[in-house]
């Protein structure tokens, strides 16, 4: 069945403000399709965003929305969900927002298994402020603040969130929009616990330019070339897995969510 997600899109605000070649439109489309696939009512959705390119996503939504501060979307979402557990609370965060300045909130929300869905657009740099390095920028990469090459290693965010205790963690790339939709849809269906979907995306304007990877099409091809499904990673050595992108479901458990556990313990 084909879904458009149209009822969640503020069409008069289109086109998106994102640069041409940006992957955020692909993530956005997959997200609203997954919402429609699950027949979510607009009134039952709160989209919580922070600051960053993907943090502008709520500008195009016709759901309830909270556009807050840089890095704190997950903390705001926690308060909304606990105060009204009937709501479907989505935190839409980037890599700078969600795991660099907001890294502490991310791991604690995962540990608590707070019943929210986090959709992280990971474009490996701070796009909105001009392409500086973030907590997911790879070693040696060139950014506007690592012109000699990046000194630090990057977070493997999905592995981090999995080990912090989240009930559901999955990663896809913008080269596979159907997979993004499938994971978000599954996260919605699960209803409970902390559900985290990381999407590896591209920033041709900054990261692509600085690292001379080429135009958006070349960047997409590069992502495709480096993608390995998590089910197949066992076939490869650690050395062979270097510089690859593991996609798939990192964990999928039915752990009791925070809301349910809180209710049981405090009753």
């Amino acid at each position, binding site marked *: 069945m084909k879904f458009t997600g149209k009822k969640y899109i503020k069409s008069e*605000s289109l086109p998106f403000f994102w640069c041409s070649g940006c992957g955020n439109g692909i993530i956005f489309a997959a997200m609203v399709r997954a919402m429609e696939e699950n027949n979510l009512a*607009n*009134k*039952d959705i*709160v989209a*919580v965003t922070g*600051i960053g390119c993907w943090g502008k996503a*709520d*500008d195009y939504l*016709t*759901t*309830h*929305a*909270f*556009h*807050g*501060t840089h890095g*704190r979307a997950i*903390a*705001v*979402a*926690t*308060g*909304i*969900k*606990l*105060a*009204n557990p*009937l*709501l479907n609370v989505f935190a839409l965060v980037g890599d700078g927002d969600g795991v660099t300045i907001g890294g*502490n*909130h991310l791991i*604690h929300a995962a540990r608590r298994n707070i019943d929210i869905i986090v959709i992280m657009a990971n474009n490996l740099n701070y796009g909105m402020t001009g392409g500086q390095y973030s907590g997911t920028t790879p070693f040696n990469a060139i950014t506007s603040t690592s012109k000699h090459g990046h000194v630090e290693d990057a977070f493997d965010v999905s592995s981090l969130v999995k080990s912090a205790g989240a009930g559901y963690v999955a990663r896809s790339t913008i080269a596979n929009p159907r997979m993004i939709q499938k994971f978000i849809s599954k996260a919605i269906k699960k209803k409970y616990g902390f559900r985290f979907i990381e999407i590896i995306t591209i920033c041709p304007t900054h990261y692509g330019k600085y690292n001379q990877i080429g135009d958006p099409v070349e960047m997409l091809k590069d992502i495709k070339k480096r993608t390995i499904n998590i089910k197949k990673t066992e076939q490869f050595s650690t050395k062979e897995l270097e510089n690859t992108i593991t996609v798939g479901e990192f964990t999928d458990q039915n752990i009791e969510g925070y809301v349910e556990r*809180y209710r049981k313990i*405090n*009753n």
Partner: protein
Amino acid sequence: MICGNQGGRFFLQGNIAVGEAAIKAGARFFAGYPITPSSEIAEHASLNLPRAGGTYIQMEDEISSLAAVIGASLTGMKAYTATSGPGISLMSEHIGLACMVEAPCVIVDVQRAGPSTGLATKPAQGDFLQFRHGTHGDHMIIALSPASVQECFDLTIQAFNFSERFRCPVFLALDGIIGKMYETIEIPEISEFKFCNRKQATGLSEDFQPYKPDTDLIPPFVPFGSPFITRANGSGHGIDGYPSADAHNHEQLVSRLINKIDNYKEEITLFKKYYTDDMEVLIISYGCSTRPAIAAMKKARKKGVKAGVLQLQTLWPFPGNIIKALLPQVNLIVVPELSAGQLKSEIIKYSQGIPVIGVNKYGGKSILPDDIVAAIDKENQE
């Protein structure tokens, strides 16, 4: 709850009186991070909120604590947090957010000696200017300060009422002395309280605008989950809640956030006066410096010095007009405070040339009545 729905006399700690009053005022959400000397408020909430059908959560820091409080508030719940100066420093980011998204909430600060970690268990009044100017950008804030356990209870109710009425964060400024002190207080029957709940939007239609203010400059509230879609936005926004970087729009927005409080300054200004009718020496105090101020006033009067006390219960918006009105016969203003002179610096703006002297301690020790009397004597000798 210690006092339940019954009225009566109770022997309570200041921090506990705050917790009891918060739940009585209808608060059902607390997010916080433990810090001395405020932790009893968190402990009280963790024990009592679940029993009242509410939620307590201990967050990873004060930044996320206030974020969660704001999120909860916008679902329609009365929400609060409690901390001390170091926590207020971390919360500063979201004090601005609460102002901007117009989320009613109460932030309790049990002040301790700073700067930085300072003296964790020692009282201070060094956050006076931080309440007003802690977060960046132009805005107006409400801050109340109790000087007894009874006032801890009464002003907590008042803080929730103001936050709901004006859709803004309200500070409740305790200090290590007032928060940790035990006294017997009188709690009225529940039917005798006046509780204010935020103005709800009514008669909504499809073209509902979440930030369209009424004539009182306050936009009616719609909670997340309502069939009428609402938006909260910490960035510059139009009345529809969508972003706007238009200069005129932003000036209008910031002016409204200031004026929706400033215009009701008279209603917000709470204070107590002692022996001010014939006074020549005016002692201005708040919080823990009030008791030594009153004792010093009595001592001074015995010596023939006509002293009076103005106790500020509302710190912000600053009640400068109340001070001005008391000045005609006054020839000396004395400001005892557990800070190097923050309150004094604000009073000077309204003192109309009358000498203002501070009695300042900031080592964690209380001000004594004799400290104030000595300061008056010294000034009168010169």
